[in-house]
């Protein structure tokens, strides 16, 4: 077995938390049950990884199998990476019946035709997600297995999720290969990024809860009503206001959990509006500034702001449009013309 492969396997196993090593090796399926039985999972991780490498040596592992183990690790710990969303555009009108083998062949073919030194690995998951791992090399250098790119694609959708740690020059190659393989003709990056891959999927696949007005009585979710301790001595002075806020929140955010985003960034290129007498800025230039909202769970915290009394309800549409517009990066410019209102650029 190649030394580089051995080292790569050793380092991948070291990344895995000790309690999960057995489970991941089982998922990998490269080592037999009998071989797994011989491993002692209670020793120091260094020793475990060494033993694993020895077993892989027995089975003559190559880089392809090692890459599969890496995909498995990154699929389980997908939230450690930052994901970006790309949207593809179709020119033709034909409805294809996506063939996975066809897709893989075209993708590999396209990528390898430009760059010989790449390692490409595919893995399909239950929810129709196709994971692609690409390790990049150059004309003269073998692929760097320690900085691969990951692509997640759901067939017959125009969206691709990429977590890349690659040279800027390799991104166009990756994009080209994707559109060729999936029969689209163009691809562009959306202004949507997050660590939570599932939340990004929820947003673009419209899987998150939206509040639509219907006549059909939806089963009322009793969980929404706060179980207040009905102490009769406490009088709710602003009950109507509380209810108004709750109603507005439901209209805007829906009933269910929100997709998990960590930040929203607004790049302002608007004119600074001040008292003309103060004359802060001599030049009539747009005041450039960047406003960034960060949170472990941005949308849930925005949802709870009016109820907590920290913001007026209804919230600004610039904040609430995030899931619907599928973006968390905004550029706000001054609208040129008679009415200098700011608007959000598409």
């Amino acid at each position, binding site marked *: 077995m190649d030394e580089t492969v051995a080292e790569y396997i050793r380092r991948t196993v070291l990344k895995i938390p000790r309690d999960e090593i057995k489970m991941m090796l089982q998922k990998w399926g490269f080592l037999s049950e009998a071989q797994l039985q011989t491993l002692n999972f209670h020793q120091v991780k260094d020793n475990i990884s060494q033993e694993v490498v020895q077993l892989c040596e027995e089975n003559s592992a190559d880089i392809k199998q090692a890459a599969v183990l890496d995909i498995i690790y990154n699929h389980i710990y997908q939230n450690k990476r930052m994901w970006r969303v790309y949207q593809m555009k179709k020119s033709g*009108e034909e*409805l294809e*019946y*996506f*063939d*996975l083998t066809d897709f893989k062949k075209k993708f590999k073919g396209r990528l390898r035709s430009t760059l010989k030194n790449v390692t490409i690995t595919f893995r*399909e998951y239950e929810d*129709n997600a196709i994971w692609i791992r690409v390790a990049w090399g150059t004309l003269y250098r073998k692929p760097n297995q320690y900085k691969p790119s990951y692509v997640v694609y*759901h*067939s*017959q*959708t*125009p*969206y691709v999720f990429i977590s890349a740690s690659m040279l800027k020059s390799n991104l166009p190659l990756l994009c080209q290969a994707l559109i060729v393989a999936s029969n689209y003709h163009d691809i562009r990056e959306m202004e949507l990024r997050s660590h939570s891959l599932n939340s990004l999927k929820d947003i*673009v*696949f*419209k899987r998150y809860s*939206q509040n*639509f*007005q*219907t*006549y*059909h009585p939806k089963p009322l979710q009793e969980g929404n009503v706060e179980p207040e301790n009905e102490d009769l001595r406490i009088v709710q002075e602003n009950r109507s206001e509380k209810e108004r806020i709750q109603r507005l929140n439901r209209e805007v955010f829906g009933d269910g959990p929100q997709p998990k985003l960590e930040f929203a960034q607004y790049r302002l290129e608007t004119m600074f509006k001040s008292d003309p007498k103060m004359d802060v800025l001599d030049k009539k230039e747009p005041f450039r500034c960047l406003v960034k909202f960060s949170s472990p769970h941005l949308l849930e915290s925005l949802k709870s702001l009016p109820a907590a009394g920290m913001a007026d309800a209804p919230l600004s549409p610039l904040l609430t449009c995030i899931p*619907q517009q599928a973006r968390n990066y905004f550029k706000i410019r001054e609208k040129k013309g008679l009415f200098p209102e700011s608007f959000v650029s598409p």
Partner: protein
Amino acid sequence: GVFAHLEMLEARDRREAVEQEEKEQREEKLAFLKSRLRELRLQRDQLREKLDRLEKGKVGKEGMALDPAHPGPREVLEWKIRSLRSLLQVFHLTGISGKRSRRGLCLSLGTAFEGSYLDSFHLELPVRPELRIRRHSIPAFIPLEQLSREFLHSDFRSFLGRLCQHLNGFVGRRLQVELLQEHFSDWIQGTLHRNSLCNLLTFTYNIPGNSRSFPFRARLLYRDPCRSLPTEVTVSCS
């Protein structure tokens, strides 16, 4: 003598006075009780009268209510609400129902397959300044953009009809895949490969219990996205 006689007369007098007093007391009490009796009797009569009046009045009211030819306004309202609710239920059963809100038109598209009601999808369409889709919950692999480009402004009915067909086709295919995996889990070997639209399925299966058979490989292709039956089926044996 004389004193004894006088004492006797005095005693007699006292006795008679006491008796007289008692008699007067008794008569007083009697008179009081008699008047109390008269009072109670009067009260009783009044209550009886009241009861009679009430009973007569009730009968009178019952006599009035049972007149179906002239329903009261409340009955009319209740009937209206009932029939509207049934109408909404009927619309819901057809699969397309809508509601006008201040944001425009909100459509709910329900799907079903062979008697099972499945998912509902929604569209929010503002009408002004022009008809467009503002929000929706249509999955990304349904060609919504293509359909709206072609039909939304030219033929709205076709747009809805086709969209419903696509959705129903997808939901029907998906349900069939789930049922296949559930009911024939011991026939299918390995994993069943499908795509997002469930219009291409490939799987390997074996007839259980028949040790002499070898695995078959099936490939189902559904060329028509609106239908839940395949157009091409290939079964091969390796």
